[in-house]
């Protein structure tokens, strides 16, 4: 049997603490059986420690290993590679526990714990996790401490104190590294959740889709405004427009996505300045290319482009949280559906602040033939009753605004709003309009666009979010998945007009916070029990949540902004940033710190001698040439006696010198006069010896 390295009691306690702490963040990611394995292997190791059980036989360990590998391969079907890889790491970490014979094994376990601690940041990057990670590091280091100091130490808390002191000492290094260590782009991109669908809007929409999103309270994006916050009924965050309908789903046509950046540029006549909103958005990973903005973005980052439908699009899919800044101009007149906005061709897109002020507003924009065709597209047949209704209304009302008004009135009077609409089949628009008359925003938007197009009015679906929860702490707006929304835009008077049929069916959808509005609806926030129960939206808990949100938001802003700030800072410091300069810059603080430590050590070792010793050393240097200097073990008395033999004319002075020294150092007479006397005598002797 192998000799078993017995961990001390405090090591074992700290080890269990570190393992539990490190594993907690992975609980939502790991398969259930792995959590069972964690409890079993930890329990087994504890029983081994107290002597109730033996280490598992090698065959058991082999069986466990094979079982884990097979189970992990099985899990791999779902395709979530990253969480499987983490699960593999966790599994090997746990299995190592069952064969922790030697100190080396305990160290391996602890090092893997450090690695796991870093891995947890793959899944969470909020401020709470940052502090939690620090706690884990401190506990693991405390455990490391107990393992290295293996002598039986009954004090349980001392390792923790030591660990905390270590981390406190590390703070300067951490700060320096944080400030100047270059943020290198990863060498390869890790797709965290390829298997799992992102919660959020997709690029196609069937009428019932949006209601699925109301099950989730995940954050879609956060916004902070530089100036005032737009009123609730203007908070339409446009993501994408959908122009193709196949009788069931709305999709984006190829031509609308691939049309390239918009070349028409806006000029907004006579818009009062208070309708400009400058804001920063921190967007959570969505896996999509579009970015959200208020209608109508007029200044946006150069890395994005604006499609002809005035939505913003980025070349890459969003895999990690980003921050971007947008300036939008939202005319109040838009709400009245009477304001005209003119597009003017010609001016090339500028990255920022490309606001054309030159247009006069007299020339109305026209849709091109192909655009018109695209925004009037309908399936060749089906939904005949709806088409007839549209034709009838068109004949009855005559013009577009009256048609729209008729449609809205009809929605307002006969339709109701629900998150759980009946299932539609076949001619879905007809069924919705004439039979069920219940639906969610998707249904209304979809039916409205169908009616408009049937009547020959170009229209399109807009997908995005509406609303957002205002955090009174920092004035930021948090937009969650349950605020996903679909509305429509129709072409009138030379511009696209926003129309939200949901607003007439359920007017409170615009004014109230979505969570209050939906709270009675079944299915709302089904995946977020805490939010649904309303506990978090009441009283002091709400305040705490808002405080936390605010802190976390500024954390994200800070972390995301830091890269740019750092670049600026480094450039100001170094001029052009080159690798060599960076390396020198990184090494410099380390070199300075080491020098300080070395000097300190050196200084401590040979602390500055007292004046008497310095005087004696002067005398010694004087005598060095004649090889008469004081030897190490020679007392001052015998030294002076020896010198008197060499310099008989100085014998009285030397004798006094010795007496003086004896008085000061050994009799304890500390009067300064004596000290001065001594130094004077030494100097006198020095002079005499030099002249001889």
């Amino acid at each position, binding site marked *: 049997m192998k000799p078993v390295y017995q961990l001390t009691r405090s090591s074992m306690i700290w080890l269990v603490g570190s393992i539990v702490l490190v594993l907690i963040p992975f609980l939502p990611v790991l398969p259930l059986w792995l959590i069972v394995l964690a409890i079993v292997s930890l329990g087994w190791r504890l029983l081994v420690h107290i002597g109730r059980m033996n280490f598992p036989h090698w065959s058991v360990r082999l069986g466990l290993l094979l079982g884990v590998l097979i189970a992990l391969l099985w899990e791999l079907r779902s395709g979530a590679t990253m969480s499987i890889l983490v699960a593999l790491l966790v599994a090997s970490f746990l299995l190592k526990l069952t064969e922790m014979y030697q100190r080396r094994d305990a160290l391996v376990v602890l090092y893997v714990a450090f690695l796991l601690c870093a891995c947890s940041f793959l899944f969470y990057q909020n401020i709470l996790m940052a502090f939690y990670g620090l706690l884990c590091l401190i506990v693991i280091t405390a455990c490391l401490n107990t393992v290295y100091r293996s002598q039986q130490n009954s004090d349980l808390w001392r390792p923790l104190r030591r660990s905390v002191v270590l981390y406190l000492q590390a703070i300067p290094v951490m700060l320096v590294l944080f400030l100047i260590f270059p943020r290198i782009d990863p060498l390869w991109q890790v797709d965290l959740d390829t298997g799992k669908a992102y919660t959020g809007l997709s690029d196609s929409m069937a009428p019932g889709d949006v209601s699925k999103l109301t099950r989730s309270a995940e954050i879609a994006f956060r916004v902070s405004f530089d100036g005032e916050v737009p009123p609730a009924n203007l908070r339409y965050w446009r993501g994408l427009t959908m122009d193709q309908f196949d009788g069931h789903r709305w999709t984006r046509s190829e031509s609308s996505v691939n049309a390239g950046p918009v070349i028409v540029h806006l000029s907004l006549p006579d818009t009062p300045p208070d309708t400009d909103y400058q804001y920063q958005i921190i967007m959570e990973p969505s896996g999509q290319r579009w970015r959200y903005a208020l209608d109508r973005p007029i200044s946006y980052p150069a890395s994005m482009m604006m499609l002809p439908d005035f939505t913003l699009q980025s070349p890459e899919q969003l895999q990690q949280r980003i921050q971007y800044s947008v300036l939008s101009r939202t005319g109040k007149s838009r709400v009245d559906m009477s304001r005209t906005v003119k597009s003017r061709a010609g001016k090339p897109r500028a990255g920022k602040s490309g606001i054309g002020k030159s247009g006069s507003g007299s020339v109305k924009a026209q849709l091109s033939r192909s655009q018109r065709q695209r925004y009037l597209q309908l399936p060749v047949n089906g939904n005949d009753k709806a088409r007839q209704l549209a034709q009838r209304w068109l004949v009855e009302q005559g013009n577009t605004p009256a048609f729209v008004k008729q449609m809205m009135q009809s929605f307002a009077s006969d339709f109701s709003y629900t998150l759980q609409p009946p299932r539609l089949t076949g001619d879905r628009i007809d069924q919705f309009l004439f039979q069920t008359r219940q639906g969610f925003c998707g249904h209304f938007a979809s039916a409205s666009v169908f009616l408009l197009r049937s009547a020959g009015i170009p229209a399109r679906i807009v997908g995005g979010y509406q609303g957002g929860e205002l955090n009174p702490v920092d004035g930021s707006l948090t937009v969650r998945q349950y605020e996903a929304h679909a509305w429509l835009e129709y072409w009138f008077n030379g511009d696209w007009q926003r129309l939200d049929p949901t607003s007439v069916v359920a007017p409170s959808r615009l004014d109230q916070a979505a969570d209050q509005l939906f709270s009675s609806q079944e299915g709302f926030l089904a995946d977020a029990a805490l939010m649904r129960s309303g506990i978090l939206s009441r009283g002091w808990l709400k305040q705490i949540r808002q405080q936390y949100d605010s802190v976390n938001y500024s954390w994200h802003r800070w972390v995301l902004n830091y890269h740019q700030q750092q670049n600026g800072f480094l450039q100001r410091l170094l001029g052009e940033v080159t690798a060599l300069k960076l390396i020198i810059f990184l090494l410099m603080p380390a070199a300075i710190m080491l020098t300080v430590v070395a000097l300190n050590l050196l200084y401590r070792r040979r602390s500055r001698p007292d004046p008497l*010793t310095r005087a004696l050393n002067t005398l010694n240097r004087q005598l060095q040439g004649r090889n008469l200097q*004081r030897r190490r073990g*020679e*007392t*001052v008395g015998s030294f002076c006696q020896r010198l008197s033999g060499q310099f008989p004319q100085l014998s009285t002075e030397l004798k006094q010198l010795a007496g003086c020294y004896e008085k000061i*150092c*050994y*009799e304890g007479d500390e009067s300064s006069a004596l000290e001065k006397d001594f130094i004077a005598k030494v100097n006198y002797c020095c002079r005499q010896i030099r002249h001889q």
Partner: protein
Amino acid sequence: MRDQIELAVSEISKVLYGKQEQIKLALSCIFSEGHLLIEDLPGMGKTTLAHGLARVLGLDYQRLQFTSDMLPADILGVTIFDAPSNSFQFHSGPVFTQLLLADEVNRTTPKTQSALLEAMEERRVSLDGQTYPLPTPFFVIATQNPVTQHGTFPLPESQLDRFLMRIELGYPDTAAERELLKGGDPRSKLELMQPLISSEQLKQITEACSEVRVTDSIIDYLQRLVAHSRQAEEFSYGISPRGALALLSACRSWAYIEGRDYVLPEDLQLLIGPVIGHRLRAAEDIGSFSSDSLIQQLLNRVDVVG
């Protein structure tokens, strides 16, 4: 008081010629309430010195010649059944005295040695479940032959440590020897010696010795010596804290005898040999070094001035 000490030294010098320094060392050992080990060849005056000290100090004294067949009971005493009183009576051994002269302590077996050394350390005797305190003051002056001689059981380090000092007498110089040869048997003079220091005075001297000043400079020097002895490769182990304390205590007494009320580094240099010599051991690879040269090496390598 110091006159009396000087007088005592000169009185003992009348029987032990030319050994003033050793006499003063022995006295400072006694003033520090320590036990003394005198190590030299037979016939060098070890016993004479011990006798002289006992006479001058006016202490009760017993002389005990150690032999290889000696048993602990021969030192400590025995319990014997007393018929008239129908009870066991303790008959105290020679150890129950103020000054015990243990002659040739390394001639006897380790068992008997440890019986004596235990009494030295504890200053009491435990026998048959009874504890008998030894008289105060209680000093042991032991003599031993160099371990190279036949028929000796060398004292182990832990027992050597019980002795505050170990001194050697050495051959007398020519003049002293001449005087010795002319003067006749010193033993007869011993009988005529009168006590010069009473036990009350001895107590006062002991107290005065412990008040001799030791400045930080001295402590620094002592610490440097101790640290060097622990780090240097020549020693298999360094000076123990008890050794350092003993050295300081002996230095105080020495300084008092010398008429000073403060300790000088010279005192340390002089006393480190007698006090520390038997507590240090050379590392094996330079085993041929005598402990004297080792200590000299130590003194030469450590700076007196900080």
